[in-house]
């Protein structure tokens, strides 16, 4: 466990002094970082409380606050980069939260490379999407409320990533859940959308239960739920407990990040307005699970079994999402499946331990950019096509929607890992890392590496399919469609995100900037022992990517795409129905529950009742007499209460208990 020495735990354990020195030096960026959360929250409060009178300018206020937060986050980033590497983890004590007797819980912010990277991503992408939404939601009567929710989401997300304890993080965790629920069901006059919101909410609760249990176990084991306290004590606890905590945390992460087996809500969550899908269900909130796993690194590192499960979940989900993505005809659902799959990559990397942390987060950042960009592009396409989401009714849009086409192409190239684009620098390294799982021993590198490699090929296929079906091939528009380019307010954010999709990876990945930045978190990890050399992995990946893209081009750009989906193979049909995940949920959870109930009813009817009926008759007869005591007169009840009080207190006094 020598790794622990340089992990966050160790840093956090010492940071009492560090925080002190920060306050002394008066770094306004840190002491003022609570504003980062407070500003969007204030925006949300103003918009919600201001009501209709803010309708006219409310959305601009909503846009202003994330930009202000972004400015603060950027300043924070700069100031943090100004410190020597060892001092980049700082806590800002806000206030004593729950002082209750011996128990004290303080609310504070943890500012370290991980949280600041997240904060910058959330505020930047969030701010861009806010701008986009001004135009996208222009026709909606409730635009002001929409921005209030978005602002609330940004505030919660920032609280989630900046919190210095699991409990405070949980507040943000629930906050984003609430925002997600409100936004998925934003058009809740449509029962399907309302149901989708409810589904997301309920599935998330399952995950949240895991997180809650994890916190309870932490409190029982370590007596604290602050990051610093827990990580400092993590080494001393038994592996069994740590594994349990890790699995519970993973459950929470799965719920939030739509990982197997709690993935079913993400596809339906596309019911929300597209900016929501871009911000919450692609770029930020769904990656909170990855954040949780990376943040809880010290726990997972001490519990290899839990780590293995994380990797397995990541691998399963990445294949699952990719397969589903290949079959869907709904543009947003393809993107949703792709999100799931990409988060699977991140989860896989996060599960690999310190080797993968930096790449998980790097992929998270680049993914935030290109996926958000593609979602915005999808929104722009829908905007142009009269809110149609059917891939099969698009085709040949590149001529009429130039900006969208180009920006989307950047995102597409990034996600399939085209060399030089952002995705290449992050995903490729994850695949390499996967081949070194378990220190390059046993079966694990081959299975996980293989899955990641296969996933890359599938990603190339389905993303190319999406791209070609939308922008190339024959025009299959319905009669009344008049596709046109989106307004400037929408295209500018898309262009900015596209620039990020092109250049961010190259700027952070190969230059080593990001790995250095994250090194306090990842620590000095052991030398990798990949089972395949890096050049071989890259070559294989590229081959598969090219194969996937070419196949997609042949089927969906070069040849006619049928307007009605062909029946397809069994796998296609399964994938169209999300690999029967709802059916599996039904079969695995609902049906057995029903059968169990029926069995119990049977046993109850035949076995127990015979015994019980006699008793029941007895009790019933007795109850028939006694029920008249239940007079309905509250004064009689009060009299019986007083009798009880007299009896108990009299007895206590008599026997001097």
């Amino acid at each position, binding site marked *: 466990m020598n790794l622990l020495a340089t992990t966050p735990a160790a840093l956090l354990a010492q940071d009492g002094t560090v925080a002190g020195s920060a306050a002394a030096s008066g770094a306004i960026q840190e002491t003022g970082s609570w504003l980062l959360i407070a500003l969007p929250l204030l925006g949300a409060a103003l918009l919600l409380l201001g009501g209709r009178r803010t309708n006219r300018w409310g959305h601009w206020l909503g846009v202003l606050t994330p930009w202000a937060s972004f400015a603060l986050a950027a300043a924070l980033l700069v100031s943090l980069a100004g410190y020597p590497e060892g001092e980049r983890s700082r806590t800002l004590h806000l206030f004593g939260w*729950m*002082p*209750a007797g011996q128990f004290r819980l303080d609310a504070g912010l943890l500012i370290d490379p991980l949280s600041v990277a997240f904060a910058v991503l959330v505020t930047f992408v969030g701010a861009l999407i806010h701008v986009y939404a001004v135009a996208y939601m222009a026709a909606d009567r409730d635009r002001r409320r929409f921005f209030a929710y978005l602002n609330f989401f940004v505030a919660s997300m920032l609280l989630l990533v900046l919190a210095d304890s699991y409990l405070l993080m949980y507040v943000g965790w629930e906050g984003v859940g609430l925002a997600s629920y409100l936004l998925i069901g934003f058009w809740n006059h449509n029962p399907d959308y309302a149901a989708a919101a409810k589904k997301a909410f309920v599935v998330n609760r399952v995950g949240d239960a895991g997180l809650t249990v994890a916190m309870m176990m932490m409190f029982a084991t370590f007596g604290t739920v602050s990051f610093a306290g827990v990580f400092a004590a993590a080494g001393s606890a038994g592996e069994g407990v740590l594994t349990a905590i890790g699995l519970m945390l993973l459950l929470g992460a799965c719920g939030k990040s739509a990982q197997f087996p709690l993935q079913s809500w993400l596809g339906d969550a596309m019911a929300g307005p597209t900016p929501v899908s871009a911000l919450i269900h692609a770029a930020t909130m769904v990656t909170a699970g990855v954040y949780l796993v990376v943040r809880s690194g010290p726990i997972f590192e001490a519990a290899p079994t839990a780590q293995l499960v994380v990797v397995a979940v990541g691998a399963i989900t990445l294949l699952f999402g990719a397969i589903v993505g290949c079959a869907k005809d709904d543009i947003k659902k393809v993107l949703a499946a792709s999100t799931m799959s990409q988060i699977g990559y991140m989860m896989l990397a996060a599960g690999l331990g310190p080797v993968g942390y930096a790449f998980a987060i790097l992929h998270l950042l680049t993914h935030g950019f290109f996926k958000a960009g593609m979602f915005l592009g999808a929104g722009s396409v829908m905007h142009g096509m009269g809110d149609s989401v059917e891939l099969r009714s698009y085709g040949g849009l590149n001529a009429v929607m130039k900006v969208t086409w180009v920006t989307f192409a950047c995102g597409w190239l990034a996600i399939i890992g085209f060399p030089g684009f952002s995705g290449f620098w992050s995903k490729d390294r994850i695949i390499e890392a996967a081949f070194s799982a378990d220190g390059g021993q046993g079966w694990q590198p081959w299975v996980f590496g293989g899955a990641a490699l296969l996933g890359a090929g599938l990603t190339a296929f389905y993303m190319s399919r999406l791209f070609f079906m939308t922008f190339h091939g024959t025009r299959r528009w319905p009669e009344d469609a008049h596709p046109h380019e989106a307004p400037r307010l929408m295209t500018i954010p898309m262009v900015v995100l596209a620039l990020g999709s092109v250049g961010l990876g190259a700027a952070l990945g190969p230059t080593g900037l990001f790995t250095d930045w994250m090194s306090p978190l990842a620590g000095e990890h052991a030398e990798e022992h990949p089972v395949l050399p890096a050049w071989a992995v890259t070559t294989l990946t590229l081959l598969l990517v090219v194969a996937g893209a070419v196949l997609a081009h042949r089927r969906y750009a070069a040849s006619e795409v049928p307007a009605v989906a062909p029946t397809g193979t069994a796998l296609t049909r399964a994938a169209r129905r999300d690999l029967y995940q709802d059916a599996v949920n039904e079969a695995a959870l609902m049906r057995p529950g029903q059968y169990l109930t029926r069995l119990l009813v049977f046993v109850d009817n035949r076995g127990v009742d015979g015994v019980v009926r006699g008793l029941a008759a007895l009790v019933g007869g007795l109850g028939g007499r006694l029920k008249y005591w239940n*007079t309905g*007169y509250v*004064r*009689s009840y009060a*009299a019986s209460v*007083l*009798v009880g*009080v*007299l009896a108990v*207190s*009299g007895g206590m*006094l008599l026997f001097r208990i």
Partner: protein
Amino acid sequence: MTSAMQLSGMLAATDPPGTAETALFWVLAPVTVVAACGLLFARKAVHAALSMALVMIGLGVAYLVHDAPFLGAVQVFVYTGAVMMLFLFVVMLIGVSAADSLVETIKGQRLVAVVLGLGLVLLLTGAISQATLDETVGLVAVNEDPGNVTMIAFRIFDDYVWAFELTGALLITAALGAMVLTHRERLTPRTTQRQLAADRIAEGAVKAPLPAPGVFARHNAVDTPALLPDGTPSEASVNRVLRARGQVRSAEETAAPTAVIQSEFAEPLGDGTEEGGSR
């Protein structure tokens, strides 16, 4: 020796309690107990509320004796001033004159209540009499430095701050709850004053105050109609109750004696009276 102690001195809170406090106790205790019994026996809810207010004030004075001046004032201010006043309001809102019947309808309830009440008194007094209490310490020193209010503030905002915040939340919730419970959704638009005025004008009825009765204050003048400028009596000037009872005096009755008076003047007062009279 400042006035805090001086107050205590006047109310005689010495520790252990002195004769002045004993005297006060024997005044307060019967008053409060008798007033409290008002709850049991008063037929009108207002009387019950009044006796309750008296109990509250008595307890407020008792708190002053117990080195709790702040609590004493708050007791009177909050309980008597706010809570009992609220009770009074509700009593007046939902039936002012309703005097309760004191006949018991649930069989045996009264007997049970008396037995239980006496049992409670016996139990509690028995328990108190059996208890060994420490020597009374008193709070005089605390009230002197840092002071009663300051000390309570220290406790509230230090040890009990969580409870304090919860209580604040509770109060706000209660206020909202009361508003929600008593709120009525308005189903028709509110009539504005402008609308009311317009309606009144549109009706075309008399807008000015009705004419006052009793031009000649010779009898019970309210039953005598006023005379209009043209001499006709105005029925509208007499209370409609009197009209319904048929107690309106006709203007002729009053006109007859006035004719005598008029004749004493050189000039008649006007044709109107005679015209009215002749009608």
